[in-house]
């Protein structure tokens, strides 16, 4: 397969890469760049474990080809973390007990981050809507919604 050139910014860092045209964004992140905080739970956009922020919007990285991201900007869970500081959402997830097995957590936090970027003061209904594409099998969502609400309340 003929490789294509991809210019992409990931977590603030510019990359120029030669990639297969059928490479998914998810595989670029995980397999090529070892940014394994982004998870694969279904591969067909039904679970949200692979949610990343593409040009400010939450997307499923399993449904997007890396080649579609030419000239665009991607933020993953690794990019949300400052050097020592946690993003307020990450701190809130810890404080509210919103983490159990943790496999849905990065995708859930990315959906919440995209929401708060667009709407810093969402209602509970907005929060539930924003994470409705992110499945969690452990928590029952209560503590997750509380964590996101707490960050929104501080805004």
């Amino acid at each position, binding site marked *: 397969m003929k490789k294509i050139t991809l210019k992409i910014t990931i977590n603030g860092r510019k990359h120029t890469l030669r990639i297969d045209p059928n490479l998914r964004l998810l595989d670029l992140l*995980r*397999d090529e760049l*070892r*940014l*394994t*905080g*982004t*998870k*694969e*739970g*279904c*591969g*067909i956009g*039904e*679970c949200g*474990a692979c949610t990343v922020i593409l040009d400010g919007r939450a997307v499923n990285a399993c449904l997007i080809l890396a080649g579609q991201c030419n000239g665009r900007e991607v933020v*993953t*869970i*690794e990019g*949300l*973390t400052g050097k020592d500081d*946690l993003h307020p*959402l*990450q701190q809130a*997830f*810890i*404080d509210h*007990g919103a*983490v*159990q*097995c*943790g*496999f*849905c*957590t*990065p995708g859930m*936090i990315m959906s919440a981050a995209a929401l708060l970027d667009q709407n810093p003061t969402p209602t509970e209904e907005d*929060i*539930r*809507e924003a*994470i*409705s*594409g*992110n*499945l*969690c*099998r*452990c*928590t*029952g*969502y*209560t*503590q*997750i*919604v509380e964590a996101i609400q707490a960050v929104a309340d501080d805004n």
Partner: protein
Amino acid sequence: MTSYRYIGRRVPRIDARDKVTGRTVYSTDRYSENMLRARVLRSSLPHAKIIRLDVSRARELPGVEAVLTHEDIPGHNGFGIVTPNWPVLCVDRVRYRGDALALVAARDEETAEEALSLIEVEYEPLPIIETPEEALREDAPLIHEGGNIQHSMDIPPKGDVEKGLAESDIVIEETYSTQFMEHAYLETEGGVAIYDEEEGVITVWCGDQYAFRDQLQIARSLDWDPLKIRVIGSPTGGAFGGKDEISVQIHLALLAYYTKKPVRLHWSREESIVAGPKRHAMKTTFRIGMGNDGKLKAIDVKVVANTGAYDTIAGPVLNLSLESSPGPYKYPQSRFRGISVYTNNAMGGEFRGFGAAQVVFGLEQELDKLAERLGMDPIEFRLLNAVEEGDISALGHRLQTSVGIKETLEAARKTDLWRDREKIKRDLNAAARYKKFGVGVASEWHAVGLGVGLPDFSNIIVEIHEGGEIILRTGAIEIGQGNLTAYAQMLAEALGCDIEKIKVIHGDTFESPDSGTVTASRSILINGNAILDAVKTLQPKLIEIAADKFGIPGDELEYSDGRVSFRSDPDRTLTLAELADHAGSSGVPIKVTGTAVFATSDKDFGDGLPHNYYTYITQIALVGVDTGTGEVEVLKVISLPEMGKAINVDGVEGQCEGAVVMGQGYTLYENVVVEKGEFKTTGFATYILPTALDVPEQETVIVEKFEKSGPFGAKGVGEAPTVPVTPAIVNAIYDAVRVRFKKLPITPEAVLEKMRDLAGTEER
């Protein structure tokens, strides 16, 4: 009352920081440069003879490093927690659509996929058995040589149940049926294996529930020294019982052995649904007798379980169905019988709630019906019949550990939702005339531990290193439930040290001792007791070290709050760090082992039956039923668990909230549909999980009752809240629209149909 620094408080999880930053490395997050990608060839028929299996073309494909069949298995070609009859790779027969026939390892996914398509299989189809009823017919084809009954259990009857029923004023009888349920952990089964030829060691990373059992099962199939197999099973992205059994472990070990390269295998969601175990589909028949005074007199229960193609742990699941089926109530006469039957529809296995969810769904509706016959309040009726500590159970064993069912019912009665339920329903109805609202209650006792006669133990190791770092080693797996944090809390409390000083090394057969499996709500009680045992050994050792350092007899010293001090001069002390430094400089590091074994029941009915510890729980549900669409909305659930002492309040709430939503899914949406052995549900578009938009408001009321033989008084809570939420919702639906359900899940269509039937009956 004892005042604790860590126990019974809200303690943030010690693994949360790595999880929220994406730094936690799960087994499926492991990649390396020359890593091969593996795929499994699954059967394309649910039941067939294999006439020919030809992998020669696949082996010739460039980029393919190995194609393995049953001929390449050096040892036993089978696995299974109890009976290892589930083939690693099928020889001459397939029994369900998930059966594995061949393994491929190739340089990339595409090549592996292409290689699978080049494998030629010729089948001779066999009749497909879908249900236990079909399997039990005299002329039914045999799925296994020994017959289609996998396991049968007839608990020695207590008294004479027929006499008890004959003497009852009211006798009711009903049969309930439940569906296959999918675990749907977000991380599907997967991992990585590496073979170190020089050391002769095969290492397998695979999120599981018991690395040491995986180690033995891999060793048995590879004919390998188990001590040369390293399994790292922790952490895992959700398990719920579904990862206690082998999935990818033996396949990965075989491929690593033959290719001598790192191999990665990660099941797709569809593969996870088709090949992995499910909550057993079951049919349960109850006959229950009661006096006009509201006292239960007799219960007769028959359970038929659809266990699917192989055994894994089906016997104990059925046994626990029987043990759970009377609930925490007194019956002078009882009889419990069950069979587990092979079919070609999916694989039944272990699932949080372990046989109880299926039967409690029926029992707690029967109890509501009985209460209604006498015009009694459902909670009063349950209180009248509830067991107490020291009572003889419905099964005939003595309840010798803490029994809190009455306390949970009394707490439930005091909640606003229960007390003001008529007003709450009226207010809701005033705002939504097309809906009807109802409140339901249900209870359960859920066994904790593996049960009598099974190896129910734990070993843990505590080390104190120079500088004061404390290492706790446990074979327990972090499957999401928060046990590592609870262990650190218990160790910090017992030692009197800061929790931040403790590092937990977990779930690694080379780096941690065997703590038993993380299942059966057992790991808090048993590992907690092992930790306390270690601390009991550790304290005199620390005094010995201090005595050596000070050059005085040990009896002049005492240990408390993370330091050894002089009895005569409490200000003269040595901290844990100073003690560890001294021990280190004398060349004797501080390291102790703690062990614990479950105390067992006074009766033994075989195969783990019965248990000695139970979680008791009552749950209340508020639902709204749309009378136009039949849609059921769960508006609120209150869980009132009695699990002894709560170690981490956040953890208990998290377990309850997650379990309630799992139970809500089981009740209303989730159904693995298998027709003629073919899976109709293969992903989350057809297998519907509750989302953040569907779930109820929740409240957890922790009902504590100290258990003297538990660590700090604790038992366990992981499974119980999954169970009575189902009949609580169903009883609430009845309260709303006066129809009952004998079958799960309760779809809007089923609700509408029942409501139409009811309207028809009323018109007539």
